């Protein structure tokens, strides 16, 4: 440390700072010897940290502690198997191909490898300074889910890690992640770019389950974090899990002090993430096809209509008919109208109109005016609407128009 102080002091002299000719006159704080380092600390308002303890544990010891294999310089591979039949929480591990196909990736049913994918990084800040120190990959292999994790035990392991991931992804048809589109893939691509290696993440399709969870539950749950999703959708509760936010600390503790304990927990955490991904895929699929009352039905139906057509949306909403909130009922009426089932649409609108819903009343006014040309009934609805929402110009215009139309019919 003393050489640092000396160097920084030299630096200060070079930049025209202290030459050491301190006057003897008394003054405040005169006895403080000001190294530039002190100046830095004062200006930055930081206290001196205790110097880093150099890592004393070797890579072999870490590999042992993790029950992994050293497969390259500073690169440890962890491999384990998770039997399908164990299930996960109350969710069975099955039907991933059909699920992936239903969630918008039809090629996945044809036999290419579906790879579940999750990384651990030195931070969430993004940019070139965030290091991906662990990559977890998993795919079904016979009766098991095969979990393969790569861990850099130092920066020297990064090229090997990137290369290994590239090889493992060669057969991948589809990547499945949770928030991987905006985070894991972006971060890992940055690492490939910095290492001047081509990215293997571009070729396979990518299914980010977060988008589906958000669609179904963003308006139902306080958040859509995986730790929230697991108990709600999988009936799975982690115990003694190291929070993902501790991953950076864990790796740094290893790097600086040779501590292996927290890294073991990170590896464990990452494995559960992978298993949860594998279970979430069929779990989400089941929500689209099933009768879960907690789902945000209107947004789910909108997506179904886009991807699988109006009939699929209609079926979904019919299945949940007793549990639809206002916006889902309107969505059902809209879908019914689109496929020409006017009587269903009108039924819903009338029911909602009785409850005083302006949007439904407006639909009825339109329906009677333009579809049935029943101007008197339409006028009645238009009048009801005006009493409800007086200041909307479109309502007034409709009212005036219908008055005219009624007058000319009866006249």
């Amino acid at each position: 440390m003393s050489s640092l102080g000396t160097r920084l002091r030299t630096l200060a002299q070079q930049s025209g700072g202290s030459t050491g000719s301190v006057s003897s006159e008394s003054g405040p704080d005169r006895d403080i010897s000001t190294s530039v380092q002190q100046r830095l600390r004062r200006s930055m308002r930081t206290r001196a940290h205790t110097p880093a303890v150099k890592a004393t544990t070797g890579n072999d010891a870490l590999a042992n502690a993790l029950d992994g294999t050293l497969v390259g310089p500073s690169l440890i591979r962890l491999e384990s198997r998770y039997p399908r039949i164990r299930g996960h929480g109350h969710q069975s591990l099955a039907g991933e191909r059909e699920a992936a196909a239903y969630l918008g990736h039809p090629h996945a049913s044809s036999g290419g490898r579906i790879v579940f994918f999750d990384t651990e990084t030195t931070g969430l800040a993004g940019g070139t300074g965030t290091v991906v120190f662990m990559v977890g990959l998993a795919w079904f292999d016979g009766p098991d889910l095969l979990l393969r994790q790569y861990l850099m035990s130092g920066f020297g392991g990064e090229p090997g890690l990137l290369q290994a991931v590239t090889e493992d992804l060669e057969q991948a048809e589809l990547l499945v992640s949770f928030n991987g589109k905006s985070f894991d893939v972006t971060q890992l691509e940055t690492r490939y770019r910095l290492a001047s290696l081509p990215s293997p993440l571009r070729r396979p399709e990518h299914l980010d389950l977060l988008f589906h969870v958000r669609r179904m539950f963003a308006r139902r749950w306080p958040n859509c974090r995986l730790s929230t999703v697991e108990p709600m959708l999988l009936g799975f509760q982690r115990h003694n899990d190291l929070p993902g936010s501790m991953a950076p600390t864990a790796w740094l503790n290893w790097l600086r002090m040779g501590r292996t304990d927290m890294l073991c927990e990170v590896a464990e955490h990452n494995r559960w993430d992978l298993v949860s991904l594998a279970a979430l895929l069929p779990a989400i699929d089941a929500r689209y096809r099933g009768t879960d009352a907690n789902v945000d039905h209107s947004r789910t139906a909108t997506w179904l209509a886009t991807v699988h057509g109006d009939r699929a949306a209609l079926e979904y909403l019919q299945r949940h008919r007793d549990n639809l909130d206002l916006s889902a009922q309107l969505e059902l009426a809209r879908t019914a109208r689109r496929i020409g089932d006017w009587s269903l649409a009108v039924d819903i609108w009338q029911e909602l109109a009785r409850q005083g819903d302006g949007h439904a009343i407006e639909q009825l006014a339109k329906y009677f005016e333009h579809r049935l040309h029943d101007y008197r009934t339409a006028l009645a609805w238009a009048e009801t609407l005006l009493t409800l929402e007086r200041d909307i110009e479109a309502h007034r215009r409709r009212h005036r128009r219908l008055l005219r139309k009624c007058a000319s019919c009866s006249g």
Partner: protein
Amino acid sequence: MSQVVAPAGSARTPAHPEPDVGGLVRSLSKRFSKRVTGELLIPAQQGSYSDLPRELDPRLHQALTGRGISRLYSHQAAAWVSVRDNRHTVVVTPTASGKTLCYNLPVLHGALQNQHKALYLFPTKALSQDQVAEINELNAAGGLGVRAYTFDGDTPGDARKAVRTRGDIVVTNPDMLHQGILPHHTKWAQFFESLKYIVIDELHTYRGVFGSHMANVMRRLRRVCRFYGADPVFISCSATIANPEELAELLIGNTVHAIRENGAPSGPKTLLLWNPPVVNPDLDIRASARSQSSILAREAVKAGLKTIVFAQTRLMVEVLTKYLKDAFDRDPRRPARVRAYRGGYLPTERRETEHQLRADQVDCVVATSALELGVDIGSLDVCVLNGYPGTIAGTWQRLGRAGRRNRPALGILVASSLPLDQYIVRNPEFFLGASPEHARIAPDQLLILLDHIRCAAFELPFSDHDDFGSSALRPFLEYLEQEQVLHHEGGRWHWVADSYPANAVSLRSVAEGNFVVIDTTGGQQNIIAEVDFSSAAMTLYEGAIYMIQARPFQVERLDWEGRKAFVTQTRADYYTDAIDYTKLKVLSEFRADPSGAGQSAQGEVHLVLRVAGYKKIRYYTHENVGYGNINLPDREMHTTAVWWRLEPDALCQAFESRWQALDGFLGAAYAMHFVAALLTMSEPGDLGRAVGNSDATWFSHVGTRGRGSAQRFNGDDVDLEQPEQIFAPTVFLYDNYPGGIGLSEPVYEMRAHLLTRAREMVSECRCTAGCPACIGPILSSDEERTVSAKTLALRVIDLLSVPGSACA
């Protein structure tokens, strides 16, 4: 900056009759001959031309001729040759000399012929937008298909990818490069791989703190370019300063070829130096610059001349706008003839004013330096400067706003009562000859350097053999390793912290976070302005009158943490001005030297700034109509300073009382501050001034209670005549930036010269007892004192200059 190239041999005829600038000059000189201290005539200049380069891409050739450009000014041709030879180039020419083409030509040629990419850096977003519009006009004229995009905070997320991957020319600002591009350079890999040109316009604006940051951003940029195997050529443009080459070389870290011969023609220009009349001959008090500027602008507008008035502060912009609106915009049914333009207005409002100026819909605009830069506002006839802008280069640049497009023009520099202004208007020769001003930057300033080493380490790991700037890198890396930010392994320093360092480094000011001003009149919530952090305490305190287009708003509530000020419209007939206090504590002395009967030293200080209260000042009469208290957090910083103090014995002998000595120190500090700013070619705001006890128990200021009150930082008065009270008054001139930006060193080096010049300034002033032009404003009651403040100030300066002189 708009490109104005006259077709060969033919002067462009103005659409409307030539405005009679000469008539106004004659009339003013005749009626106010005593106020005009100097009249400079800058004759019209003939253009000097060259043919379009033979090797120019034919499509570009066609686009240029399509826009009426069939030949180049000589400096444009010189820039072409220099850039073609892969030399880093700086073009030094005045406003409106067609400098844009100096870089657009090689850049467009490179894009068309070799798919070369270019990065343009402008100091502000507004300039970026102008630039893209201009390239696109050229694009359209020749069907060039070159893609130029702006990339800044306003670029929508979904458009960013297109900019990164498809842009041939990306126009951005240093802040965005620093926070948005470099830390994500891998996303820009394609762009960097083909990057051939980096354009830095308005080079002279990168000085002081901003420039020192900029130099480091350029170091980072070059580092990232090297990573992608790119070695771009820098093309920069600067206004006329003394050391453009040196500045460019410091900024880009390489040798630079300068082009100084301006080939653009210009119309004749008159510059009047204007000193407001003396209204109190005894005190040598002059009428305010404000009143004179207002009169001059009224005369010019009445003569049918388009006029711009530059004011130093946002407050002054608003006050002057009000006065001029009172004269010209009395009828609310007619469109406004007078507009204000300053930083802090919302972009839409500024764009609207720019548009109205170009469309000739406004007769007069009152602006801060926000319009000094190359925003295209069309041609103006008269430019009134309310107060000396602080530098000759800044003066010329503002004056360049008048007389674009070959028309005769008039500039009037109205001096305020500040010493620098008075000095400048009494010495017209300052405006002749070469620019005396050196733009200074300190890229290796400790904290700035550390900030950027941090950012650079985030962007790409440093290796043991790397360097960054001229300082030894390793101690910084070791420091950052101790801070647990970096990890040293295998000869490389890897970033390991969970943070994004660029977000914590602002290139322009110290603290983060602009304040928004929210109008809550009538129960609504409209954002009407933004105020940067550093000026928030001085302008948005509760009770402040905040003005926008001369409409007064009163600040009802200030949410300091949330960075919001809630205001309502008001009809107040006064404006408010904040009162601030400074407290300085010496932390360490780097060096010291006897100075007369005392001592002068340079070292590190801890500084606390407190905004304590405000004055209410009535319009037109400028009388004080009240005070208010302000309760805001203090601003603290560590910086470097130079200070002077006298031995206690010398003090005792020279002054009858401690109060007298204190008055002398306050007056001397005032004069020394302005001389120091002049000698270091910095703006007075870059240097701070304080007078206080050396042990920081009390500080003194010229406040609301007259001269020389000494107070503790809590506002309590100190009775200096108590014998047990330690009395060691000290003049501090400090570098007004955390860590210092390299100003205190030259001030210390010039300490002897500084005292000599300060003495001249005070003794040669024609006032009898002291005035704002020498030792600062004094109260009329001071006139009756036995010894004037001026005499006391001279005594302090003498004591500091020559040992024992006061006894003689």
